[in-house]
């Protein structure tokens, strides 16, 4: 069965320091993986996705994620945090079984300190 585990429910970083949000997945075959961001009172926005073309995926706003099959991980990183990055981040795995189904992690709330 497909599942995702986000290892940290809350992460705090200082502005200008690196961001690391961790995600591990479970999948019986090569998965599609996504990171979505949700700002307060806003809808979910796609940050980036992995679909086996390249293990290092670059997304919007300077975020990137690396797919590591040996570690079943898909961690999200950014070299330098900005105040506007404060939001909830969701790791998502999809499976295709006649149609696409998307399974969400429990989310990581990122706080950026001035």
């Amino acid at each position, binding site marked *: 069965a497909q599942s995702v585990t986000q290892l940290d429910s809350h992460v705090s970083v200082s502005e200008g320091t690196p961001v690391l949000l961790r995600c591990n997945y479970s999948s019986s075959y090569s998965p599609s993986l996504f990171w979505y961001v949700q700002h307060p009172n806003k809808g979910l926005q*796609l940050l980036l996705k992995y679909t086996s073309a390249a293990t290092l995926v670059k997304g919007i706003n300077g975020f990137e994620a690396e797919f590591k099959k040996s570690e079943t991980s898909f961690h999200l990183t950014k070299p330098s945090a900005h105040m506007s990055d404060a939001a909830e981040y969701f790791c998502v795995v999809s499976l295709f079984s006649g149609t696409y189904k998307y399974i969400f992690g429990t989310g990581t709330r990122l706080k950026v300190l001035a």
Partner: protein
Amino acid sequence: EAGVAQSPRYKIIEKRQSVAFWCNPISGHATLYWYQQILGQGPKLLIQFQNNGVVDDSQLPKDRFSAERLKGVDSTLKIQPAKLEDSAVYLCASSLVAARPLAPTNEKLFFGSGTQLSVL
């Protein structure tokens, strides 16, 4: 392009009352999803439509929740009667229909802004 439209944006009701939410997906998107997001949790799929047919409603509390997508375009989700634990954000999402796996670049899920429901 226009995004996924949802209304209302906020709703406050008392327990045992009824409420309905509306969603209009992106034009051409045949697959529509309703998710429930309780505070502090990730979105949970309630029901998934492909055109006007239900693909998955295994997590929909059918004694009180119902959903329809009569013409394969917009959809309504109803709760009757509401309980306190139904307080959540209800998210609608849409994607391209796929009889077989899409080309990777085409696999995307687009979300509306959600309806925040408070049951008092």
